């Protein structure tokens, strides 16, 4: 009886060990009686053996495997190194981002504080005074406070000259300290 395509497929499945026990029993029974089918099975076995020997001939030798492992090893070392490096960079990046966010938050909360200090420059004329002592009628001494443009911004009366001069000195010292502080703030701002 000639072997058809279905038989061929069944024989191959048989060689692949994928038939159910029942199918194997049925096929064994047929093989015992059908010589054409048995010959075909032998032929398929021979072809398979040839292919398997070809696959085995493709197996690499020890040198090739070693060479491959060296390549893989080198590649994985590089991967591990970069992975470590990127991990560290991630930490640094996170820290930098936290600092930046903190800075932005502080800036958002106290946005005008530095400007207030800048605005207290002596050139605004808001509280710069030039005390001048001058005796007036009836032995009253006046200390006149003037701004840089000569405008009178305040007058303080004293009974005697010493008190008036003392006040004048105090105001002068106060102005001097005020200027020093303002210059200090400027210096700090310049350094940033």
């Amino acid at each position, binding site marked *: 009886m000639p072997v058809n395509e279905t038989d*061929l*497929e069944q024989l*191959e*499945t048989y060689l*692949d*060990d*994928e038939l159910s026990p029942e199918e194997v029993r049925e096929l064994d029974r047929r093989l015992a009686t059908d010589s054409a089918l048995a010959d075909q099975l032998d032929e*398929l076995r021979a*072809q*398979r*053996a*040839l*292919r*398997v*020997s*070809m*696959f*085995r*001939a*493709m*197996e*690499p*030798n*020890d040198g*090739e*495997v*070693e*060479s*491959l*492992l060296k*390549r*893989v*090893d080198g*590649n*994985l*070392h590089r*991967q*591990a*190194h970069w992975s*470590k490096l990127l991990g560290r960079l991630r930490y640094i990046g996170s820290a930098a981002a936290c600092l930046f966010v903190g800075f932005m938050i502080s800036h958002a909360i106290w946005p005008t504080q530095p400007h207030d200090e800048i605005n207290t420059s002596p050139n605004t004329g808001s509280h710069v005074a030039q005390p001048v002592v001058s005796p007036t009628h009836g032995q009253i001494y006046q200390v006149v406070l003037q701004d840089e443009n000569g405008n009178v911004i305040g007058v303080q009366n004293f009974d005697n000259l010493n008190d008036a001069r003392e006040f004048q000195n105090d105001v002068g010292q106060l102005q001097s300290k005020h200027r020093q502080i303002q210059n200090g703030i400027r210096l700090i701002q310049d350094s940033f």
Partner: protein
Amino acid sequence: MRVSEEERPITLGKIGGPEKHTDPTIELFEKAVQNHSRRLLAIARAIVGTRASPEDVVQQAVTNLFQHRARYDWREPGGLLKRAVVNESLRLLRHPRMSMVADEHPDTTETPVGGMIENETVQQVRKALAKLPEHFRAALVLCEYENMSYQQIAETLNASVPQVKTWIHRARRQLEGMLKDYVESGRKEPARQAVEKK
């Protein structure tokens, strides 16, 4: 897997330096690569032939797995590694900028069946195998060389079992057709020599 594998392990240097790994998956990964490298290279060679470098295929597949090693179970890594190599081989074959490589593995080595199979025959089978569609070839290699079941092949190639069965059957029939003339001439040759002797 129907047949247990006997691999000759070759040492792989400790990844990330000689110190002990803090990540246990790295140690398992190393062992897996050492134990399966020979078969992985053979599978890649059988599938890509001379159309790409099998070493590149294995290296890329292993590197991909290493990058995502935490996702996988490395206690049974054979199937995983083979699947990665098969998929990488198929991906490379579909790559448009693929280039031919020299056959670095001419069949000069002895075959396991000794002198019974001539190198020329093996060469002919290899040539015929290279002409098969890539899925047919991959399915056949996994079936006959790796002795994987249809179910395992289907999982590896992301196909159905009937599809795999059809691919393997067609691959065999096409190989038979391609090698028919060669096999017949081989059969006639001893007969001709016998007649001449008489």
